[in-house]
């Protein structure tokens, strides 16, 4: 048995080794550090064990951390809604023929190949007060003042718009691939039975797309919950705490304040919360899919 599989294990071993080194080892190290009170800037810079729950107990009462989680979840839900809606719409459009379709598809995909930090830079140059064209345009044509350095809501929605711009193409392409692979028989049967386009979409397309949607939702949800780079470049987490999502908050605790133990505990807890959210979502979607079957 083992000798039959030896070649397979041999081929797999580099992947397993890499996953072990870059995935499991850091994870267990962070888990370990999370049990210690440790800040190299302290009078006593050594790692001090204060009980397994020391950092986690503090986290439960850390308003800034808790508010950053709610902010991140709100951000993830809002962006997911818009990206899915827009992405589905664009994917359906790209299924049909229209002039310059290939050109549009190419241009539409461009944001995907841009690094997040560059996306943040582009939006900053585009929207910074006084110098960027967007505030001028909004002021001159609509009398609207855009100043996300001052207005917390504007800062939040600027980041939402930036994320939608960046990631909707990914949703579009994935859904387009799913739509293109759907069998045509159910559609033909539905048309013969007299279903209109809306009914076909609701009762045929969406149910058949559930597996693809689950994949897209999970990928985007997890990405949105760990957003850092673009926000870092555009607002730095401000004004105040307005755009301090959990990823940025952890960065600040770990690399600015050097609370390594506390920051590690935050990372672990946030990972746990992310897994729970995804598991709940998965359970709901799967159970709903089964009930519709």
């Amino acid at each position, binding site marked *: 048995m083992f000798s039959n599989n030896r070649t397979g294990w041999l081929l797999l071993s580099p992947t397993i080794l890499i996953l072990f080194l870059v995935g499991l080892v850091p994870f267990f190290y962070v888990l370990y550090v999370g049990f210690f009170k440790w800040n190299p800037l302290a009078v006593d810079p050594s790692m001090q064990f204060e009980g397994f729950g020391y950092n986690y107990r503090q986290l439960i009462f850390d308003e800034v951390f808790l508010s950053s989680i709610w902010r991140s979840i709100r951000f993830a839900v809002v962006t997911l809604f818009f990206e899915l809606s827009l992405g589905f719409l664009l994917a359906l459009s790209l299924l049909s023929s229209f002039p310059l379709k290939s050109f549009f598809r190419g241009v539409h995909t461009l944001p995907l190949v841009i690094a997040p930090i560059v996306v943040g830079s582009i939006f900053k140059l585009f929207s910074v*007060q*006084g110098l960027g064209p967007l505030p001028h345009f909004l002021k001159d044509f609509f009398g609207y003042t855009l100043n996300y*350095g001052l207005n917390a809501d504007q800062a939040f929605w600027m980041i939402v718009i930036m994320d939608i711009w960046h990631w909707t193409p990914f949703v579009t392409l994935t859904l387009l691939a799913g739509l293109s692979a759907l069998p045509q028989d159910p559609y033909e049967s539905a048309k013969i039975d007299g279903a209109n386009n809306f009914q076909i979409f609701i009762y045929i397309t969406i149910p058949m797309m559930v597996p693809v949607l689950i994949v897209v939702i999970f990928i985007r949800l997890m990405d949105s919950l760990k957003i850092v780079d673009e926000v870092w470049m555009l607002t730095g987490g401000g004004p*105040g705490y307005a755009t301090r999502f959990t990823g940025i908050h952890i960065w600040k605790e770990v*690399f*600015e304040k050097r609370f390594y133990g506390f920051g590690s505990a935050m990372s672990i807890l946030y990972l746990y919360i992310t897994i729970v959210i995804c598991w709940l979502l998965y359970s709901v979607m799967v159970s709903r899919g089964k009930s519709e079957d």
Partner: protein
Amino acid sequence: MKKLLITLLVSTFSFSAMADGHAEWWKKAGAPYAGTVLQGVAENTPPGQFAGEVLAKEFEALTGIKVQLENTSWDSMYDKAIKDMEANSGIYDFVYIEQDIVYDYLNRDFLVNITEGLANNPDLQAPGVSLDDFTTFIDYFKDGSGDVFGVPMEAFIKVYLYRKDLFEAADAKAAFRAQYGYGLSPATSFDQYRDNAEFFTHYCADNGMECWGTTVQGHTGHPASTYEFLESIGPSFGLYNWGVNMDSYQSCVENGGQLNGGRAKAALNFWTQLLPFAPPEALQSTWSEVGASFAAGRAAQGWVYGENAAWIATDSEKSAVVGNVGVMLPPTAPGVMTQAASGNGYIGYFDGGAYGIPHSSKNIEATMLWLQFIAQNEVQADWAIAGGRITHKATYADPKVMAVDEQADGYFTLMRDTGFLYAGAPPFPFHGAGRAAIDPFIYKALAGEMTPEEALDGACQALDKVMSDLGYQG
């Protein structure tokens, strides 16, 4: 580009002259390390660019040792340097040490003792290089026993810049006197500063100019705003050492600190009330954007870091206000100047940095040569002209520097004569953690989410908690 080429030519000429004297020594000293590549990381400032683009090439030509200096953003520089030193990975042979982080680095034993290293390796001691040639700024990079851990490569004072053309405009003078009842002039008091700011905001708008009354380094998501408050505005109101009681490490008034005291609140009120008179980009401006805004002619006056003062005043390729820049000490509250002169306070930030060698460097000896190369008197004048920085006493008297000083309205002279009124950051090993605790409150005060009083009450509590958590409050 033209300016850079000229600088290169001038530098090559002057370095060749320098090299005639000690070229053989440098060749001989560098021979064992020829082919070595030294990696450095630093903040992207004009002096850093000169070091990477000009000095590094000259050093390589003499010694065969290549220097690759990665000039990057302030945040990125710290991120890379600290991670490298913490992990002991040895990626960087030298790192930029900003004055305010040196106590952290020394506390964590990141840096090589340069004095000791040179004493133990007499063969590495370059002729004509003496650490005594530096200004007193080098003292910030010494430990308690006087050993040097960083070779200063830039030093500036944060000055008050103003637009001479605006302040001297006849119609502006007349309108100002009519409105405020006294003559228009650069500010020496905070009331006057505010009046100037208000006046020029309206004056510019009325005359169709894209300019405002003052700069404000008020980014609501970047530590630059906290630094502006703690290191410039606060001290000019008499708030020293972040308001921290240096004996008890408490910052709230009720515990003996000053961070939420009357002077601090007056300072933050003054500063936040300037926002209506600042360019719209003020709340997204760090030190770089403030320099750029002033250079673009978008502000009539402001606190501007010295690293930007010289090029704003002299570089017509980057600055629209060349020939119109006035330089002065910033306004101060009554009594502050006296306290600063007697050594019991300071009026603003003595900014700057040094290159130091991490223990993790794999090329410590070759890096010692590089640091001595940049410490030579001969390279200082061109470096001062290119980067607006002076770290050697003799540089002030160099004819080339004096010529630029004249163009820059006496910025270098001001630094020489009044540098003692300024101070670097307080010696807090917990600098980064403490500042990060204060940041959100300053951001909220700037964004109007908190009053200055509420913000400072919150800031002092947050700072006290950090100092307590870290064990500094006994």
